[in-house]
């Protein structure tokens, strides 16, 4: 859910919209925001399933330290989505 109105931060300023593709689904995102934020705004919270135990994982630290939110971004696996910004046409996949 996006926070459009905020008592301190005010109204969300207009931002350029780009399109990203998450496993075939085209999503709108704001230019410059991290992938993790864009996915969260669309209600996506499972970013990957673990290799051994096949457990779901999502955002944990949100500042690039825990590496739990990694996904395959434009073919690059293990990309930290909380610190990697969206670009128009970016392709994102869950990794195993």
């Amino acid at each position, binding site marked *: 859910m996006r926070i459009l109105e905020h008592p301190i931060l005010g109204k969300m300023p207009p931002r350029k919209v780009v399109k990203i593709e998450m496993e075939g689904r085209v999503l709108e995102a704001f230019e410059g925001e991290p992938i993790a934020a864009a996915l969260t705004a669309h209600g996506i919270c499972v970013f990957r399933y673990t*290799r051994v135990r096949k457990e779901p994982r999502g955002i944990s630290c949100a500042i690039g330290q825990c590496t739990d939110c990694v996904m395959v971004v434009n*073919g*690059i*696996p*293990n990309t930290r989505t909380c610190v990697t910004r969206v670009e128009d046409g970016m392709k994102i996949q869950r990794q*195993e």
Partner: protein
Amino acid sequence: MLKEELKRRTEVVIIGGGIAGCSLAYCLAKRGITDVVLVERKELASESSGANFASVMCTMIPLRPALLPLYSRSLDAFPKLSEELGRDIGYKTPRLNALTEEAYEAGEKYVKQFEELGFGNGFRMLAKNEINGMEPNMVLAPHGILDLRGGQVNPLYYTTALGDKARELGVKVYENTEVVGIRCEKGHVRLIATDRGEIESTYVVNACGAWAPRIGAMVGLRIPIETLKCQVVVSEKLTETYVHSGSITPISYLLADMDQSEGRMHCFGLYKQLKKGELLIGITEEPGNDKWVTFEAMEALARKAIKIIPKIKDQNVHIISSYANLYAVTPDRHAILGPVDGLQGFIMNCGYNDYGIGTGYGAAEFLAEMILNDEKSFPIEELRFSRFSSYH
């Protein structure tokens, strides 16, 4: 933390908790000799045995026949050890050595030599380009030697499993305990002094790898071991198999494959993929006695890896770690094993150069039998310390 009280008297003291010391502790315990103490300055596998390339390679260049019995016994043990120790030691075969057209004949001769030494069934010359079918992701020379029982183990799991099992069988393992002196009387070793107290012992084993000369000096021996610094980088876990064999040298040492890029550092291609999926990208060698990874080594290793395994670049593989270790190098590149003339009870188990993981277990079997039977010499002449008579 309160440390366990030291045992005051024992039959065998092993100094060093690497692959040499842990193998021997286990091989003794397995034979019922459990009145044994293993003393380690840091922790089990905290030096070179924990941070090496862990290749099991019988195909060493040049051929060193004296080491073959050690390999032979190690190779017999590897397939059974995981079960014996209750831990997966990560043994994976085979090992490949790629050979260029020019090196083919030398390779053939090499394999023939192995056959003549009764070690032939483990090797095969590959047909031209057969190697490319075995390793489709790698850019390799067209010929190759297949070493069927060579490959890899996980050095950390393997070394700690041996040490832990020895402890379970009754060996006393004292970690964070440093030997500060050794007392001898009338040509016999009598006791070791540690920073936590003294331990009397009939046998004292020097299994200290790169630090073996320090222990030697305590009993007046000059052990000619020098250190060679080696570095390796580690990739993230990969879902796909990039390297199929246990370990591979893309251009065999039969030809000098060295990047002499940065001063005295040499970069050899040596690759393997661990069971969990990480690629190990090795190795650089240079004289040195510290364990700090260098930017130069990481750069050299990465550049070479991309040439040999282009997929690393195409698939955007990341480096996630690196490590350095110290090989204990002897002048003739042979290990130093067995008793020392004139100093009864003092036993060498060191100088393994770059093959400790592959041969340490076999050597331990020989040494354990020797101690069990109270023999006064080591059966393989070329590996005795006495070959360095000028050092004694």
